[in-house]
């Protein structure tokens, strides 16, 4: 066990929960927390999320009980009740979502009692227990989704054919969440499915309320949102399919096929759709063929990312782009079982290229390990040497120093993304992979 984490590439459960609730349509988060949790999130977003902060009710607009010593000593439920009551008069939302914090979890306020009291009066209010010590921002994301399935979505009698829910992409902590969700949504819409993705501008609370009618929940992550999927299976009887975040034609084709199999779609139709998407992808890529080859744009790479991106980008590089990942670094806190599972996703790819896998949460430790590996791989013979060059580091903004150390180009994709502005850019699916190629190569040729 390590005693600390250096520069954690996530926030706490509450931080992730706030970001997730901010992304829900017309939803007002209400924090039962001391004053700083909200601004901590706002500053984290400003620095780590490609300049995206809040939304309809984010930043310092989020109502909150601002608990102090008085509440710590005497309990904060009364203060929360007052806060919610006045909030309903002022804040214009269709759903009010109470989130608890370390302080209010430790003092043991009965938040559900407050929720029940308002619900009894017909107010659309739900809650999640998101004390920061419960885990990181991905845990918070999962807890919010589970609460939605628990308290907001009624159990439906009968599934509706062709209706699916998709998640596994945490708002803000996947900096490209909007684009990724929109890209995958589009992919499934083109299969004739009805898709609820919860957090895009094309989603609505009404559609989320009907999420229980889905015949399948699709989680595009090996780690994030699995708790909610399990809960929805247990309470609502909706089966779920998990898939790594699909980036690029190989992974996306497999993703479409997997969804098709799970939903028992007509195989010839699914195959035709895959075929069509791949052809379209390569037609778009076609005019870059000359320059891609003439400029010698293949790279040795280091991939540093969260559980979603590390797997997804490695696969895209190896199977589609023909790059050479040497090291894949997972920066999440994962248990041994998850380690084995994630390492397998990196190792067993059809083309046989096999990068080394590292699990480390600490930026300086990653930097040290990568440098050591890079130096160990510099065979030389007289005036001839064969270093791992040219190279590319795809990671977070924290990995810029490492990239400098090994003389590599660099692109921030995984949180924190301090040095890019992101609105609806996404890397998932077929089109997303084309965006990624644009971004990678634009970095390489910037001095041209």
């Amino acid at each position: 066990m390590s005693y600390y984490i250096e520069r954690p590439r996530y926030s706490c459960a509450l931080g992730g929960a706030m970001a997730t609730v901010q992304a829900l349509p017309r939803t007002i988060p209400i924090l039962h927390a001391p004053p700083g949790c909200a601004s901590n999130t706002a500053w984290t977003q400003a620095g780590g999320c490609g300049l995206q902060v809040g939304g309809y009710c984010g930043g310092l607009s989020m109502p909150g009980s601002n608990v102090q010593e008085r509440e710590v000593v005497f309990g904060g439920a009364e203060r929360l009740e007052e806060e919610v009551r006045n909030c309903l008069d002022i804040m214009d939302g269709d759903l009010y979502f109470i989130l608890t914090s370390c302080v209010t979890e430790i003092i043991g306020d009965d938040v559900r009692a407050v929720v029940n009291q308002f619900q009894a009066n017909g107010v659309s209010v739900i809650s999640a227990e998101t004390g920061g010590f419960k885990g990181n921002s991905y845990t918070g994301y999962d807890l919010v989704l589970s609460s939605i399935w628990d308290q907001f979505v009624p159990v439906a009698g009968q599934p509706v054919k062709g209706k699916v829910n998709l998640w596994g992409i945490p708002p803000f902590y996947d900096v490209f969440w909007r684009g990724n969700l929109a890209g995958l949504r589009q992919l499934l819409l083109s299969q004739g499915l009805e898709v609820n993705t919860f957090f895009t501008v094309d989603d609505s609370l009404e559609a989320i309320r009907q999420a229980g009618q889905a015949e399948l929940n699709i989680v595009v992550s090996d780690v994030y949102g699995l708790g909610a999927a399990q809960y929805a299976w247990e309470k609502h009887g909706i089966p779920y399919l998990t898939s790594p975040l699909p980036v690029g034609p190989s992974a996306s084709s497999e993703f479409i096929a997997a969804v098709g199999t799970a939903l028992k779609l007509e195989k010839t139709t699914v195959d035709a759709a895959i075929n069509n998407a791949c052809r379209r992808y390569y037609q778009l890529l076609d005019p870059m063929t000359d320059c891609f080859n003439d400029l010698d744009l293949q790279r040795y790479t280091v991939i540093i990312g969260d559980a979603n991106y590390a797997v997804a980008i490695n696969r895209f590089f190896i199977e589609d782009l023909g790059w050479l990942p040497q090291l894949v670094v997972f920066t999440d806190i994962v248990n041994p079982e998850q380690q084995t599972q994630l390492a397998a996703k990196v190792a067993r790819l059809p083309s046989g290229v096999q990068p080394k896998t590292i699990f480390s949460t600490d930026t300086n430790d990653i930097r040290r390990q990568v440098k050591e590996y890079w130096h160990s791989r510099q065979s030389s013979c007289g005036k001839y040497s064969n270093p791992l060059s040219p190279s590319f580091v795809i990671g977070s903004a924290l990995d810029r120093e490492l990239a400098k150390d090994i003389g590599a180009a660099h692109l921030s994709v995984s949180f924190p993304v301090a040095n890019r502005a992101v609105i609806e850019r996404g890397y998932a699916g077929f089109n997303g992979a084309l965006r990624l190629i644009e971004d990678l190569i634009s970095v390489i040729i910037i001095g041209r």
Partner: protein
Amino acid sequence: MNYFDQKEPPRREARLGACIACGGTLNKLAKRKMTCCLPDGERSFTQNSICLLLPALGMMNSITNSVVLMHGAIGCGSSSHGGNAAVRSGNTHRWGVVKDATWLSTALSEHDVIGGGEEKLDGAIREIDERYSPQIIFVVSSCAPGIIGDDIDGVAQQLQPDIKARILPVHCEGFKTKIWASAYDAVYHAIGRTFLQEPSEANQVNRLEKPTINLMNVSSMGRVDEVELERLLDALGFGVNIFPIFTQPDKMAAITRAQLSVSTCPTHDDYLLQYLKEKYAIPYVLRHMPIGIENTGLWLRDVAKHFGLEQQTEQFIAAEEQELKVALAEFKPFFAGKKAFVSAGEFRALSTAILLAELGFEVVAVRSFHHDEFADSEYEKLMKVTAEEIPVNIANCQPFEEANLLRRIKPDLFLGHMNGNATAAKSGVATHVIYNVGLQYVGYKGAYELARRLYRQLQNPQFNRQLSRWLPLPYRSSWYEADPFTYIWKPEVE
């Protein structure tokens, strides 16, 4: 009683009677010395705010050869992802080298919260000392350890003999105060207890030859603002020792060898300057903020008076003001009569409001994050340059009150703090950030640069206007009809 003998500094609510909830008009508030603003006054509806941890991290992350160890849940301190940009640029501007901040977290789990986190903290300090070899390890306590009773001071004291770095415990439990300016006290307290304990005689012999001034900067000024103040002080013949941001631990004690300490903001520095005065007999100046033309002059005169340099300072100020006046002539007709609304930390808001009036704007409303007695004089100054009936709102952010006021007042321009401009922007008002360490605000140069930026900004506020057409604020329409101060507790007697 010497505060620095205690483990933690006192709450500002107690030490200064600082408050966060008040609404009224300028003349009422100023003349009655904010009597409606009760200590521990509050609202019955609140939006979230900032806690002292955030500004404290802004200071600590800048200190050279230091690391910040957050003792708390894994999210406390993730704001450093935002603060890191200022650390990178600050290091670049000062040393010509890009360098990230290094912060770490003990990442307390549910298990730790139940069983206590001291053991983990102990292990973390030992390992960090070994692996990072910093000169300082700031050990920062957030809410959770504050409630479960982890004794960070005890752990630090016990470990110090085994640790090469100096361990500085810093108390940033967010549930203990609503005045986040307490952050400055918390960090100063830690530095004072560790680095400023030598007896004053030891420092006397090292008095520097050129009269040197401690110029306090808790990160409210970027390097570009420091340069302007150095220019002004240099012109009067002073050396400048900037403290505490971006200082090197070895050089911290230099602060005890200056002839005078000068604050740029009474909200920031009174806690440490009083200590330096008592312990090292270093007098201090803590009255005006060098933002604005008149205020920059007043600030300089205070310094000059201490050294008996009044006459040459008057000449210098007159020359500076004359040069600036000519330069500003280009902008003034454009600004004339435009309505400006200002919101920020109390001194920053007031001095900037006065500057805007000097530039020709009509100041129509002011919001201050908190109020304490230091600012009484600024309200008096503001009343001389603006209408007496304008709304004044003491609020630790609370954008719902701001949205209401904006709807009523319809200003042409809004100046708000970082993360405090979105409400005005979505209301369609031209905005400008009142504090950003990449931009210049301070002194005569700052006045000109701010004017130059406002001149640019006001030429095309279309971005915000279009936002307001399409992005509603999250408030019910009925809220805009209500008194903006409805939810502030009213005192029994006004």
